[in-house]
């Protein structure tokens, strides 16, 4: 497997090429530092993203509650996590950091405190 990507570890944005070798290891070229190697490796083998969205609430003053995955979430799980979020109705009051749901190891937490 081969992937061309732009490193986002620092503003330089090196153009990287990550390639799985016959022995299973990943070779990375185009980087100017070691962070690029780690980034490219992760992107190829186990890409993750922090998922951020909003869910419904039972409040009229604040109809939406912003939420996030507590940690970066594997890309293949994102669609399921989003669906879970859109099905939630958070009840006020809710505090920032409150665990709202968990799906397949991904924790969904509130990112805002709403009194009402």
């Amino acid at each position: 497997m081969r992937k061309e990507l732009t490193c986002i570890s620092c503003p330089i944005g090196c153009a990287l090429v990550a390639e799985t070798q016959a022995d299973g290891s990943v070779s990375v070229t185009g980087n100017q530092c070691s962070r690029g190697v780690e980034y490219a490796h992760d992107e190829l083998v186990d890409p993750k993203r922090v998922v951020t969205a909003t869910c419904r609430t039972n409040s009229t003053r604040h109809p939406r509650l912003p939420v996030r995955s507590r940690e970066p979430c594997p890309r293949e799980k994102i669609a399921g996590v989003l669906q879970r979020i859109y099905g939630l109705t958070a009840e006020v009051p809710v505090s920032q950091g409150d665990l709202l749901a968990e799906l397949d190891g991904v924790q969904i937490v509130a990112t805002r405190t709403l009194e009402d």
Partner: protein
Amino acid sequence: MREIPFDTAVIGGGAAGMAAALEVRARGHRVCIVERDDELGGILLQCIHNGFGLHEFREDLTGPEYAGRAIREVAESEITIFTRTTVSEIASHGGGRELTCYSAENGVVKIASRAIVLAMGCRERNRGNLRIPGSRPAGVFTAGLAQRLINMEGYVPGRDFVIIGSGDIGLIMARRLQWLGCRVHAVIEIMPYPSGLTRNIVQCLNDFSIPLYLNHVVSRIHGSGRVTGVDVTPVPGGVPNPAGEFHIPCDTILLSVGLIPENELSKAAGVEITTETNGPVVDATMMTSAEGIFATGNVLHVHDLVDNVTEESRLTGGFVADYLAGLRPARQIRVRPGSNVRSITPARVDPLRANRLYLRPLIVKNNAALVLSAGGRQIRRIMKSHVQPSEMISVNLRAVDLADLAPDTVLELSIT
């Protein structure tokens, strides 16, 4: 009509206003924040994505999480908060200023204050400013408005989108829309390079295979009741090439084409504004040309990272407290943008202390040198691994850099 006295009145309760108010309050003064929205937090409340606080807190926070920190601090302080209150006018009054404000709860409120901090943030550049030809159907939104409608109110403005401008707000919205099940067909950027952060190009466009057309413009909007599509024209080297024009059907257009510091109040109060930043000209203490009126955050110059807004506003708060204590710089030296620099804020430095300057480059370059010079003589050289126009640079000038300079020196910061 109520008149309420303060030492400092901060206009705007977003990241900038809260940071400045907290700092002035920490130094023991009576402070109020006047916020037109329902609650404090400013634009951060609708920026539900992460990427905030990497520098300020060494954490990867969402906008509401970042704002929440300051909101909690402000709630625990003795800062007076006026929400749902809009400042209509800043007038001279006694030795200081008087704000005339409108509020549904309190009627007309007059706030008398020795010092004012302008922290009103920005408005978005819109279709009218760009003079995009075509019809005027429903379905044309600025990206920030769409963001508010989606994230705060829970409405989806459309299904098939084209985004004009590769600014961060548009890129973030591209991802947001895809994650909602909408389709973003293209991002159209007039410049030869994107104006948003690379991180966002990768995670908001590349992740979703959304094409980015650099050197292109939307030359016409179609649709009579609602948007039906856009014509896109290549503009290599800034010259339109009609032969390369193509059409993208869509029902919604988002504009992410820049922010304009919201300085109407400032202008009306006689504050001098510079076209370099569209913000007030400020001295080494972040004071504008109007005595006792300070400016900080996006209203002063458009930032890319809220962490810089907090840092800048904390510094400003400190300068405001100094001003209230009667402390003013003995002298100040002018600084101006040199080659490849678009703007430098503030426009003056105090040679007796360290000064934090924020500048915007005009070029993209790796291993660039930031050069401080005076009268052609190089004073200091700072290496930067990478500079690009979409990323503001902050630099610390030490007192030792500024010692022994003649009072009428004009310092220059260049990038080579």
